[in-house]
Protein backbone atom coordinates (compact mmCIF):
# COMPACT_ATOMS: atom_id res chain seq x y z
CA UNK A 1 0.00 0.00 0.00
CA UNK A 2 1.34 3.43 -0.76
CA UNK A 3 0.18 6.89 0.14
CA UNK A 4 -0.20 9.98 -2.01
CA UNK A 5 0.96 13.47 -1.27
CA UNK A 6 -2.60 14.43 -0.35
CA UNK A 7 -2.83 11.52 2.07
CA UNK A 8 0.41 12.49 3.80
CA UNK A 9 -0.92 16.04 4.11
CA UNK A 10 -4.07 14.64 5.67
CA UNK A 11 -2.07 12.54 8.15
CA UNK A 12 -0.12 15.64 9.14
CA UNK A 13 -3.37 17.50 9.68
CA UNK A 14 -4.73 14.67 11.81
CA UNK A 15 -1.51 14.70 13.84
CA UNK A 16 -1.80 18.49 14.24
CA UNK A 17 1.59 19.12 12.68
CA UNK A 18 1.91 21.95 10.19
CA UNK A 19 3.88 20.70 7.19
CA UNK A 20 4.99 22.90 4.32
CA UNK A 21 5.24 21.90 0.67
CA UNK A 22 8.97 21.32 0.85
CA UNK A 23 8.59 18.95 3.83
CA UNK A 24 5.88 17.04 2.00
CA UNK A 25 8.21 16.39 -0.94
CA UNK A 26 10.63 14.72 1.43
CA UNK A 27 8.04 12.92 3.54
CA UNK A 28 6.05 11.14 0.82
CA UNK A 29 8.83 8.83 -0.42
CA UNK A 30 10.08 8.30 3.16
CA UNK A 31 6.61 7.32 4.27
CA UNK A 32 6.14 4.93 1.38
CA UNK A 33 9.51 3.34 2.06
CA UNK A 34 8.57 2.64 5.66
CA UNK A 35 5.12 1.37 4.74
CA UNK A 36 6.57 -0.97 2.10
CA UNK A 37 8.92 -2.33 4.75
CA UNK A 38 6.29 -2.94 7.45
CA UNK A 39 4.06 -4.53 4.81
CA UNK A 40 6.02 -7.78 5.29
CA UNK A 41 4.01 -8.40 8.47
CA UNK A 42 1.14 -9.32 6.16
CA UNK A 43 3.01 -12.51 5.14
CA UNK A 44 2.22 -14.11 8.48
CA UNK A 45 -1.08 -15.90 8.88
CA UNK A 46 -2.35 -14.57 12.19
CA UNK A 47 -6.01 -15.60 11.82
CA UNK A 48 -5.73 -17.80 14.93
CA UNK A 49 -3.63 -15.37 17.01
CA UNK A 50 -4.93 -12.92 19.58
CA UNK A 51 -3.33 -9.47 19.56
CA UNK A 52 -1.23 -8.79 22.65
CA UNK A 53 -3.02 -6.72 25.25
CA UNK A 54 -0.44 -6.75 28.06
CA UNK A 55 3.22 -7.64 27.78
CA UNK A 56 3.32 -8.92 31.38
CA UNK A 57 -0.06 -10.32 32.47
CA UNK A 58 -1.38 -8.14 35.26
CA UNK A 59 -4.69 -7.29 36.80
CA UNK A 60 -5.34 -3.58 36.56
CA UNK A 61 -5.39 -2.16 40.05
CA UNK A 62 -8.00 0.28 41.29
CA UNK A 63 -7.02 2.89 43.79
CA UNK A 64 -9.07 3.45 46.89
CA UNK A 65 -12.14 5.54 46.06
CA UNK A 66 -11.20 8.44 48.30
CA UNK A 67 -10.21 12.02 47.59
CA UNK A 68 -6.44 12.51 47.41
CA UNK A 69 -5.67 8.79 47.83
CA UNK A 70 -2.10 9.68 46.89
CA UNK A 71 -1.12 13.21 47.85
CA UNK A 72 1.36 13.35 44.95
CA UNK A 73 -1.29 12.78 42.33
CA UNK A 74 -4.31 14.10 44.18
CA UNK A 75 -5.96 17.46 43.81
CA UNK A 76 -5.27 20.91 45.21
CA UNK A 77 -2.28 21.48 42.93
CA UNK A 78 -3.54 24.30 40.74
CA UNK A 79 -0.45 26.45 40.90
CA UNK A 80 1.90 23.52 40.27
CA UNK A 81 -0.23 22.43 37.32
CA UNK A 82 -0.13 25.92 35.83
CA UNK A 83 3.53 26.59 36.63
CA UNK A 84 4.82 25.59 33.20
CA UNK A 85 1.91 26.86 31.11
CA UNK A 86 2.96 29.22 28.30
CA UNK A 87 0.01 31.44 29.26
CA UNK A 88 -1.86 31.14 32.55
CA UNK A 89 -4.38 33.72 33.71
CA UNK A 90 -6.67 33.89 36.72
CA UNK A 91 -5.90 30.28 37.61
CA UNK A 92 -6.69 28.94 34.13
CA UNK A 93 -4.80 27.94 31.02
CA UNK A 94 -4.93 30.75 28.47
CA UNK A 95 -5.79 29.85 24.86
CA UNK A 96 -6.75 31.84 21.78
CA UNK A 97 -10.42 32.66 21.46
CA UNK A 98 -12.36 29.55 20.39
CA UNK A 99 -15.94 30.84 20.40
CA UNK A 100 -17.07 33.93 18.52
Amino acid at each position, binding site marked *: *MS*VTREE*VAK*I*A*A*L*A*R*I*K*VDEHDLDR*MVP*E*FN*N*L*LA*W*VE*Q*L*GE*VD*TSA*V*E*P*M*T*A*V*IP*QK*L*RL*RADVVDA*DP*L*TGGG*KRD*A*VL*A*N*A*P*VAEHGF*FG*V*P*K*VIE
Partner: protein
Amino acid sequence: MTSLTDLGVKALRDGVAAGQFSAVEVAEAFNAAVAEAAQLNAFIVTTPDAALDAARAVDADRAAGKPLGKMAGVPIGMKDLFATKGVQTTAASHILEGFTPQYESTVSQKLWDAGAGMLGKLNLDQFAMGSSNETSYFGNVISPWRRNDGGNAPLAPGGSSGGSSAAIAARLCPAATGTDTGGSIRQPAAFTGISGIKPTYGRCSRWGIVAFASSLDQAGPMARSVEDCAIMLEAMAGFDPKDSTSLDLPVPDWSAALNADLRGKKVGIPREYRMDGTDPEILASWDAGIAWLKDAGAEVVEVSLPHTKYALPAYYIVAPAEASSNLARYDGVRYGLRDLPDGAGLQDMYAATRAAGFGPEVKRRIMLGTYVLSAGFYDAYYTQAMKLRTLIQRDFTEAFKTCDVILAPTTPTAAFALGEKTEDPLAMYLNDVFSVPASLAGLPAMSVPAGLNKDGLPLGLQIIGPAFDEQGVLNAGLAIEQRAGFTAKPEKWW
Protein backbone atom coordinates in the same frame (compact mmCIF):
# COMPACT_ATOMS: atom_id res chain seq x y z
CA MET B 1 46.35 5.99 43.78
CA THR B 2 43.70 5.39 41.14
CA SER B 3 41.80 8.50 40.27
CA LEU B 4 38.37 8.66 41.94
CA THR B 5 36.73 9.04 38.54
CA ASP B 6 38.04 5.61 37.51
CA LEU B 7 36.08 3.94 40.30
CA GLY B 8 32.68 2.37 39.86
CA VAL B 9 29.53 2.46 41.96
CA LYS B 10 30.51 -0.22 44.46
CA ALA B 11 34.09 1.02 44.93
CA LEU B 12 32.88 4.59 45.51
CA ARG B 13 30.12 3.60 47.88
CA ASP B 14 32.35 1.26 49.89
CA GLY B 15 35.20 3.78 49.88
CA VAL B 16 32.93 6.50 51.25
CA ALA B 17 31.48 4.13 53.85
CA ALA B 18 34.98 3.06 54.93
CA GLY B 19 36.19 6.64 55.11
CA GLN B 20 38.88 6.23 52.42
CA PHE B 21 37.56 9.43 50.86
CA SER B 22 34.57 11.65 51.48
CA ALA B 23 31.47 11.85 49.33
CA VAL B 24 32.25 15.53 48.75
CA GLU B 25 35.69 14.63 47.36
CA VAL B 26 34.00 12.17 45.01
CA ALA B 27 31.41 14.72 43.87
CA GLU B 28 34.11 17.35 43.31
CA ALA B 29 36.19 14.95 41.21
CA PHE B 30 33.25 14.07 38.98
CA ASN B 31 32.01 17.66 38.76
CA ALA B 32 35.47 18.60 37.49
CA ALA B 33 35.46 15.77 34.93
CA VAL B 34 32.02 16.87 33.70
CA ALA B 35 33.14 20.50 33.43
CA GLU B 36 36.14 19.51 31.30
CA ALA B 37 34.11 17.45 28.88
CA ALA B 38 31.80 20.02 27.27
CA GLN B 39 33.07 18.88 23.85
CA LEU B 40 31.31 15.54 24.24
CA ASN B 41 27.97 17.33 24.73
CA ALA B 42 26.85 14.50 26.99
CA PHE B 43 24.95 16.79 29.36
CA ILE B 44 22.11 19.17 28.54
CA VAL B 45 22.43 20.80 31.94
CA THR B 46 24.95 20.16 34.68
CA THR B 47 24.00 20.34 38.35
CA PRO B 48 27.26 20.43 40.30
CA ASP B 49 25.52 21.92 43.33
CA ALA B 50 23.00 19.09 43.46
CA ALA B 51 25.88 16.59 43.44
CA LEU B 52 27.64 18.45 46.24
CA ASP B 53 24.49 18.83 48.35
CA ALA B 54 23.80 15.10 48.15
CA ALA B 55 27.43 14.36 49.00
CA ARG B 56 27.38 16.65 52.04
CA ALA B 57 24.26 14.91 53.30
CA VAL B 58 25.97 11.51 52.95
CA ASP B 59 29.10 12.72 54.73
CA ALA B 60 26.96 14.16 57.52
CA ASP B 61 25.00 10.90 57.86
CA ARG B 62 28.22 8.94 58.02
CA ALA B 63 29.68 11.27 60.65
CA ALA B 64 26.48 10.88 62.67
CA GLY B 65 26.71 7.10 62.42
CA LYS B 66 23.47 6.82 60.46
CA PRO B 67 22.93 3.90 58.07
CA LEU B 68 23.95 4.72 54.49
CA GLY B 69 21.94 3.85 51.37
CA LYS B 70 22.87 1.48 48.56
CA MET B 71 24.13 4.36 46.42
CA ALA B 72 25.44 6.59 49.20
CA GLY B 73 28.12 8.95 47.96
CA VAL B 74 27.78 7.92 44.31
CA PRO B 75 27.16 10.81 41.91
CA ILE B 76 25.29 9.76 38.78
CA GLY B 77 24.04 11.17 35.51
CA MET B 78 20.27 11.36 35.00
CA LYS B 79 18.95 10.85 31.48
CA ASP B 80 16.95 13.97 30.62
CA LEU B 81 13.81 11.90 30.21
CA PHE B 82 13.26 11.67 33.98
CA ALA B 83 11.32 14.52 35.57
CA THR B 84 13.53 16.19 38.16
CA LYS B 85 11.87 18.70 40.45
CA GLY B 86 13.14 22.21 39.81
CA VAL B 87 15.64 21.08 37.14
CA GLN B 88 14.80 21.53 33.44
CA THR B 89 13.56 18.31 31.83
CA THR B 90 13.43 18.40 28.04
CA ALA B 91 13.51 14.89 26.55
CA ALA B 92 16.10 16.64 24.33
CA SER B 93 13.25 18.46 22.57
CA HIS B 94 12.58 22.09 21.76
CA ILE B 95 8.93 21.68 22.71
CA LEU B 96 9.92 20.99 26.34
CA GLU B 97 12.80 23.46 26.46
CA GLY B 98 12.56 25.32 29.75
CA PHE B 99 10.07 22.87 31.24
CA THR B 100 10.72 22.68 34.97
CA PRO B 101 8.91 19.79 36.62
CA GLN B 102 7.05 20.44 39.83
CA TYR B 103 7.63 16.86 40.92
CA GLU B 104 10.30 14.15 40.91
CA SER B 105 10.07 10.89 38.97
CA THR B 106 9.77 7.79 41.11
CA VAL B 107 13.03 6.27 39.84
CA SER B 108 15.11 9.39 40.36
CA GLN B 109 13.58 9.91 43.83
CA LYS B 110 14.49 6.35 44.77
CA LEU B 111 18.07 6.97 43.69
CA TRP B 112 18.32 10.16 45.74
CA ASP B 113 16.78 8.32 48.69
CA ALA B 114 19.51 5.68 48.29
CA GLY B 115 22.15 8.39 48.67
CA ALA B 116 23.04 9.08 45.03
CA GLY B 117 23.66 12.65 43.83
CA MET B 118 22.93 14.22 40.47
CA LEU B 119 25.76 15.50 38.25
CA GLY B 120 23.37 16.70 35.58
CA LYS B 121 20.77 15.83 32.99
CA LEU B 122 22.11 13.71 30.17
CA ASN B 123 21.54 14.29 26.48
CA LEU B 124 19.56 11.74 24.49
CA ASP B 125 17.76 11.27 21.22
CA GLN B 126 14.72 13.54 21.11
CA PHE B 127 11.89 11.83 23.03
CA ALA B 128 14.21 8.77 23.07
CA MET B 129 13.58 8.27 19.35
CA GLY B 130 16.86 7.37 17.71
CA SER B 131 19.82 5.04 17.79
CA SER B 132 22.71 7.50 17.51
CA ASN B 133 21.84 10.51 19.66
CA GLU B 134 21.62 12.61 16.49
CA THR B 135 17.97 13.64 16.93
CA SER B 136 18.56 15.76 20.05
CA TYR B 137 17.53 19.39 19.78
CA PHE B 138 20.60 20.15 21.88
CA GLY B 139 23.09 18.70 19.42
CA ASN B 140 24.84 15.39 18.92
CA VAL B 141 26.62 13.61 21.70
CA ILE B 142 30.13 12.66 20.57
CA SER B 143 31.37 9.26 21.67
CA PRO B 144 34.64 9.42 23.64
CA TRP B 145 35.79 6.45 21.53
CA ARG B 146 37.67 6.93 18.29
CA ARG B 147 38.72 4.47 15.65
CA ASN B 148 42.38 3.56 15.79
CA ASP B 149 42.92 4.75 12.20
CA GLY B 150 44.00 8.19 13.38
CA GLY B 151 41.13 9.77 11.45
CA ASN B 152 39.34 11.11 14.52
CA ALA B 153 35.94 10.84 12.85
CA PRO B 154 33.33 11.63 15.50
CA LEU B 155 31.44 8.45 16.36
CA ALA B 156 27.91 7.87 17.58
CA PRO B 157 27.60 6.92 21.26
CA GLY B 158 24.44 4.99 20.38
CA GLY B 159 20.97 5.99 21.35
CA SER B 160 18.74 6.88 22.70
CA SER B 161 20.70 6.85 25.99
CA GLY B 162 23.75 8.31 24.21
CA GLY B 163 24.58 10.95 26.80
CA SER B 164 24.49 8.24 29.46
CA SER B 165 26.78 5.87 27.55
CA ALA B 166 29.26 8.57 26.53
CA ALA B 167 29.47 10.01 30.04
CA ILE B 168 30.10 6.64 31.66
CA ALA B 169 32.69 5.56 29.09
CA ALA B 170 34.46 8.93 29.45
CA ARG B 171 34.52 8.60 33.27
CA LEU B 172 32.29 11.65 33.73
CA CYS B 173 30.08 9.55 35.96
CA PRO B 174 30.36 6.02 37.35
CA ALA B 175 26.78 5.19 36.37
CA ALA B 176 23.71 6.75 34.84
CA THR B 177 20.06 6.04 34.28
CA GLY B 178 18.91 4.90 30.89
CA THR B 179 15.57 4.01 29.40
CA ASP B 180 15.02 1.27 26.87
CA THR B 181 12.07 1.13 24.49
CA GLY B 182 13.63 -0.91 21.70
CA GLY B 183 17.28 -1.11 22.75
CA SER B 184 18.07 2.35 24.08
CA ILE B 185 20.08 1.04 27.04
CA ARG B 186 21.72 -1.98 25.42
CA GLN B 187 22.75 -0.51 22.06
CA PRO B 188 24.55 2.57 23.48
CA ALA B 189 26.15 0.36 26.15
CA ALA B 190 27.51 -1.90 23.41
CA PHE B 191 28.78 1.06 21.37
CA THR B 192 30.77 2.47 24.28
CA GLY B 193 32.15 -0.59 26.07
CA ILE B 194 29.96 -0.41 29.17
CA SER B 195 27.20 -2.54 30.71
CA GLY B 196 23.51 -1.84 30.94
CA ILE B 197 20.40 -3.78 31.82
CA LYS B 198 16.81 -3.32 30.82
CA PRO B 199 14.86 -5.16 33.50
CA THR B 200 11.54 -6.93 33.05
CA TYR B 201 8.80 -4.54 31.93
CA GLY B 202 7.27 -3.09 35.09
CA ARG B 203 10.27 -3.50 37.42
CA CYS B 204 11.02 0.23 37.41
CA SER B 205 8.20 2.72 37.70
CA ARG B 206 7.44 4.78 34.60
CA TRP B 207 5.95 7.58 36.71
CA GLY B 208 7.70 10.81 35.87
CA ILE B 209 9.50 9.44 32.80
CA VAL B 210 8.57 11.33 29.64
CA ALA B 211 6.49 8.75 27.77
CA PHE B 212 7.48 7.44 24.34
CA ALA B 213 5.82 4.01 23.90
CA SER B 214 4.29 3.08 27.23
CA SER B 215 3.95 -0.67 26.66
CA LEU B 216 7.69 -0.85 25.93
CA ASP B 217 9.37 1.93 27.96
CA GLN B 218 11.47 0.62 30.82
CA ALA B 219 14.17 2.31 32.88
CA GLY B 220 17.41 0.63 33.83
CA PRO B 221 20.95 1.29 35.01
CA MET B 222 24.07 1.77 32.91
CA ALA B 223 27.52 1.40 34.49
CA ARG B 224 30.93 -0.11 33.91
CA SER B 225 30.40 -3.46 35.63
CA VAL B 226 27.66 -6.03 36.05
CA GLU B 227 27.80 -5.70 39.82
CA ASP B 228 27.39 -1.91 39.61
CA CYS B 229 24.34 -2.41 37.38
CA ALA B 230 22.89 -4.86 39.91
CA ILE B 231 23.40 -2.45 42.82
CA MET B 232 21.87 0.47 40.96
CA LEU B 233 18.94 -1.58 39.68
CA GLU B 234 18.12 -2.52 43.28
CA ALA B 235 17.88 1.18 44.07
CA MET B 236 15.74 1.95 40.99
CA ALA B 237 13.27 -0.95 41.01
CA GLY B 238 10.20 -1.52 43.13
CA PHE B 239 6.45 -1.33 43.16
CA ASP B 240 4.87 2.05 42.57
CA PRO B 241 1.11 2.47 42.85
CA LYS B 242 1.37 5.54 40.58
CA ASP B 243 2.27 3.36 37.58
CA SER B 244 -0.57 1.05 36.57
CA THR B 245 1.85 -1.47 35.03
CA SER B 246 4.33 -1.47 37.93
CA LEU B 247 5.15 -5.00 39.11
CA ASP B 248 3.95 -5.62 42.65
CA LEU B 249 6.89 -7.86 43.51
CA PRO B 250 9.69 -7.62 46.07
CA VAL B 251 13.01 -6.34 44.73
CA PRO B 252 15.57 -9.15 44.97
CA ASP B 253 19.03 -8.53 46.35
CA TRP B 254 20.57 -9.11 42.92
CA SER B 255 24.07 -7.92 43.79
CA ALA B 256 24.39 -10.21 46.81
CA ALA B 257 23.22 -13.22 44.81
CA LEU B 258 25.57 -12.65 41.84
CA ASN B 259 27.14 -15.94 40.84
CA ALA B 260 29.15 -16.58 37.70
CA ASP B 261 29.13 -20.35 38.16
CA LEU B 262 26.78 -21.48 35.40
CA ARG B 263 27.03 -25.23 35.94
CA GLY B 264 23.63 -26.77 35.33
CA LYS B 265 22.48 -23.77 33.28
CA LYS B 266 21.58 -23.88 29.61
CA VAL B 267 22.36 -21.03 27.26
CA GLY B 268 20.26 -20.77 24.12
CA ILE B 269 21.73 -19.59 20.85
CA PRO B 270 18.95 -18.36 18.56
CA ARG B 271 19.66 -19.53 15.04
CA GLU B 272 17.59 -16.72 13.48
CA TYR B 273 20.02 -14.13 14.87
CA ARG B 274 22.70 -15.31 12.40
CA MET B 275 21.57 -12.74 9.90
CA ASP B 276 23.02 -11.89 6.53
CA GLY B 277 25.03 -8.73 6.63
CA THR B 278 26.10 -9.05 10.25
CA ASP B 279 29.67 -7.90 10.74
CA PRO B 280 31.99 -10.97 10.88
CA GLU B 281 33.69 -9.46 13.92
CA ILE B 282 30.33 -9.39 15.69
CA LEU B 283 29.84 -13.04 14.85
CA ALA B 284 33.34 -13.81 16.16
CA SER B 285 32.57 -12.02 19.44
CA TRP B 286 29.38 -14.07 19.70
CA ASP B 287 31.42 -17.26 19.31
CA ALA B 288 33.80 -16.01 22.00
CA GLY B 289 30.81 -15.41 24.27
CA ILE B 290 29.60 -18.96 23.69
CA ALA B 291 33.03 -20.28 24.66
CA TRP B 292 33.12 -18.12 27.80
CA LEU B 293 29.73 -19.33 28.98
CA LYS B 294 30.76 -22.94 28.33
CA ASP B 295 33.88 -22.25 30.37
CA ALA B 296 31.62 -20.99 33.17
CA GLY B 297 29.95 -24.39 33.17
CA ALA B 298 26.90 -23.73 31.04
CA GLU B 299 25.59 -26.10 28.42
CA VAL B 300 24.99 -24.42 25.07
CA VAL B 301 21.88 -25.37 23.09
CA GLU B 302 20.49 -24.08 19.83
CA VAL B 303 17.05 -22.46 20.06
CA SER B 304 14.70 -21.07 17.48
CA LEU B 305 12.87 -17.74 17.57
CA PRO B 306 11.08 -18.09 14.23
CA HIS B 307 9.38 -14.68 14.14
CA THR B 308 12.56 -12.68 14.75
CA LYS B 309 12.52 -11.01 11.32
CA TYR B 310 9.10 -9.51 12.03
CA ALA B 311 10.11 -7.93 15.34
CA LEU B 312 11.54 -4.75 13.88
CA PRO B 313 8.67 -3.92 11.50
CA ALA B 314 6.17 -4.77 14.27
CA TYR B 315 8.06 -2.45 16.60
CA TYR B 316 7.94 0.35 14.04
CA ILE B 317 4.15 0.11 14.06
CA VAL B 318 3.59 -0.37 17.79
CA ALA B 319 6.07 2.22 19.06
CA PRO B 320 5.03 5.05 16.69
CA ALA B 321 1.36 4.27 17.36
CA GLU B 322 1.87 4.68 21.08
CA ALA B 323 4.08 7.73 20.52
CA SER B 324 1.43 9.44 18.40
CA SER B 325 -0.97 9.07 21.30
CA ASN B 326 1.50 9.94 24.08
CA LEU B 327 2.86 13.01 22.32
CA ALA B 328 -0.60 14.41 21.66
CA ARG B 329 -0.23 16.15 25.02
CA TYR B 330 2.29 18.65 23.59
CA ASP B 331 -0.19 21.20 22.38
CA GLY B 332 1.18 24.55 23.46
CA VAL B 333 -1.41 24.90 26.18
CA ARG B 334 -0.30 23.13 29.34
CA TYR B 335 3.48 23.24 29.24
CA GLY B 336 6.39 23.81 26.94
CA LEU B 337 6.59 25.77 23.73
CA ARG B 338 3.70 27.73 22.24
CA ASP B 339 3.79 29.07 18.70
CA LEU B 340 0.82 31.35 18.10
CA PRO B 341 0.95 32.92 14.65
CA ASP B 342 -0.86 36.27 14.27
CA GLY B 343 -4.59 35.79 14.18
CA ALA B 344 -4.31 32.02 14.60
CA GLY B 345 -7.07 30.00 16.24
CA LEU B 346 -6.62 27.05 18.56
CA GLN B 347 -6.12 24.41 15.84
CA ASP B 348 -3.57 26.55 14.02
CA MET B 349 -1.74 27.08 17.29
CA TYR B 350 -1.52 23.32 17.90
CA ALA B 351 -0.17 22.69 14.40
CA ALA B 352 2.32 25.56 14.48
CA THR B 353 3.52 24.67 17.98
CA ARG B 354 4.08 21.02 17.10
CA ALA B 355 5.76 21.91 13.80
CA ALA B 356 8.21 24.19 15.60
CA GLY B 357 8.69 22.03 18.68
CA PHE B 358 9.28 18.53 17.30
CA GLY B 359 12.31 17.42 15.28
CA PRO B 360 12.01 15.52 11.98
CA GLU B 361 12.34 12.02 13.48
CA VAL B 362 9.68 12.73 16.10
CA LYS B 363 7.33 14.09 13.44
CA ARG B 364 8.01 11.05 11.27
CA ARG B 365 7.05 8.69 14.06
CA ILE B 366 4.01 10.64 15.19
CA MET B 367 2.72 10.69 11.61
CA LEU B 368 3.46 7.00 11.03
CA GLY B 369 1.64 6.23 14.28
CA THR B 370 -1.29 8.43 13.32
CA TYR B 371 -1.54 6.62 9.99
CA VAL B 372 -1.42 3.06 11.37
CA LEU B 373 -4.09 3.91 13.93
CA SER B 374 -6.37 5.71 11.50
CA ALA B 375 -9.76 4.38 10.41
CA GLY B 376 -9.44 1.76 7.69
CA PHE B 377 -5.80 0.92 8.43
CA TYR B 378 -5.93 0.00 12.12
CA ASP B 379 -6.48 -3.73 11.62
CA ALA B 380 -4.07 -4.11 8.72
CA TYR B 381 -1.24 -2.43 10.59
CA TYR B 382 -1.74 -2.04 14.33
CA THR B 383 -3.76 -5.19 15.09
CA GLN B 384 -1.48 -7.26 12.86
CA ALA B 385 1.59 -5.86 14.65
CA MET B 386 0.11 -6.69 18.05
CA LYS B 387 -0.60 -10.23 16.82
CA LEU B 388 3.01 -10.52 15.73
CA ARG B 389 3.98 -9.29 19.17
CA THR B 390 2.05 -12.22 20.66
CA LEU B 391 3.94 -14.59 18.35
CA ILE B 392 7.31 -13.05 19.19
CA GLN B 393 6.62 -13.42 22.89
CA ARG B 394 5.45 -17.00 22.32
CA ASP B 395 8.76 -17.75 20.55
CA PHE B 396 10.65 -16.71 23.68
CA THR B 397 8.33 -18.70 25.96
CA GLU B 398 8.99 -21.80 23.86
CA ALA B 399 12.74 -21.18 23.78
CA PHE B 400 12.92 -20.78 27.56
CA LYS B 401 11.49 -24.29 27.93
CA THR B 402 14.87 -25.57 26.76
CA CYS B 403 17.27 -22.89 28.04
CA ASP B 404 17.75 -20.53 30.98
CA VAL B 405 19.12 -17.49 29.15
CA ILE B 406 19.72 -16.54 25.53
CA LEU B 407 23.02 -15.18 24.23
CA ALA B 408 23.10 -12.94 21.15
CA PRO B 409 24.97 -9.95 19.83
CA THR B 410 23.64 -6.59 21.03
CA THR B 411 24.09 -4.80 17.70
CA PRO B 412 24.85 -5.84 14.10
CA THR B 413 27.89 -3.51 13.91
CA ALA B 414 30.23 -1.51 16.12
CA ALA B 415 29.63 2.23 16.52
CA PHE B 416 29.20 4.10 13.25
CA ALA B 417 30.27 7.63 12.46
CA LEU B 418 27.94 10.55 13.12
CA GLY B 419 26.03 11.37 9.95
CA GLU B 420 26.59 7.93 8.45
CA LYS B 421 22.98 6.78 8.74
CA THR B 422 20.98 9.97 9.13
CA GLU B 423 19.84 10.11 5.49
CA ASP B 424 18.03 6.79 5.61
CA PRO B 425 15.67 6.22 8.55
CA LEU B 426 15.37 2.53 7.75
CA ALA B 427 19.15 1.95 7.90
CA MET B 428 19.13 3.56 11.34
CA TYR B 429 16.21 1.44 12.52
CA LEU B 430 17.99 -1.76 11.48
CA ASN B 431 20.61 -1.09 14.16
CA ASP B 432 18.07 -2.29 16.74
CA VAL B 433 17.42 -5.62 15.03
CA PHE B 434 18.85 -7.70 17.90
CA SER B 435 17.52 -5.60 20.76
CA VAL B 436 13.90 -5.03 19.75
CA PRO B 437 12.57 -8.62 20.14
CA ALA B 438 13.24 -8.71 23.91
CA SER B 439 11.58 -5.29 24.24
CA LEU B 440 8.44 -6.48 22.45
CA ALA B 441 8.31 -9.46 24.82
CA GLY B 442 8.97 -7.34 27.96
CA LEU B 443 11.98 -9.48 28.93
CA PRO B 444 15.04 -8.55 30.98
CA ALA B 445 18.08 -8.14 28.74
CA MET B 446 21.54 -6.71 29.22
CA SER B 447 24.59 -5.82 27.20
CA VAL B 448 28.12 -6.42 28.46
CA PRO B 449 31.38 -5.57 26.67
CA ALA B 450 32.99 -8.47 24.83
CA GLY B 451 36.11 -6.86 23.40
CA LEU B 452 37.38 -4.48 20.76
CA ASN B 453 37.14 -4.89 16.99
CA LYS B 454 40.03 -4.29 14.60
CA ASP B 455 39.19 -0.58 14.56
CA GLY B 456 39.65 -0.46 18.33
CA LEU B 457 35.92 -0.05 19.00
CA PRO B 458 33.93 -1.93 21.66
CA LEU B 459 31.52 -4.74 20.84
CA GLY B 460 28.75 -5.87 23.17
CA LEU B 461 27.09 -9.19 23.89
CA GLN B 462 23.46 -9.42 24.85
CA ILE B 463 21.90 -11.77 27.39
CA ILE B 464 18.13 -12.18 27.40
CA GLY B 465 16.29 -13.93 30.22
CA PRO B 466 12.75 -15.01 31.00
CA ALA B 467 10.45 -12.45 32.62
CA PHE B 468 11.44 -11.63 36.22
CA ASP B 469 14.82 -13.44 35.98
CA GLU B 470 17.17 -10.47 36.11
CA GLN B 471 19.38 -12.63 38.31
CA GLY B 472 19.96 -15.19 35.58
CA VAL B 473 20.78 -12.39 33.12
CA LEU B 474 23.18 -10.69 35.53
CA ASN B 475 24.89 -13.97 36.41
CA ALA B 476 25.54 -14.82 32.76
CA GLY B 477 26.69 -11.23 32.25
CA LEU B 478 29.13 -11.60 35.12
CA ALA B 479 30.48 -14.85 33.68
CA ILE B 480 31.19 -13.05 30.40
CA GLU B 481 32.64 -10.01 32.16
CA GLN B 482 35.08 -12.17 34.14
CA ARG B 483 36.30 -13.93 31.00
CA ALA B 484 36.26 -11.07 28.52
CA GLY B 485 38.62 -9.09 30.74
CA PHE B 486 37.48 -5.87 29.10
CA THR B 487 39.64 -3.06 30.49
CA ALA B 488 39.94 -0.84 27.41
CA LYS B 489 38.94 2.78 27.86
CA PRO B 490 38.85 5.68 25.47
CA GLU B 491 41.94 7.83 25.47
CA LYS B 492 41.12 11.30 26.74
CA TRP B 493 41.09 13.82 23.85
CA TRP B 494 38.40 16.18 25.10
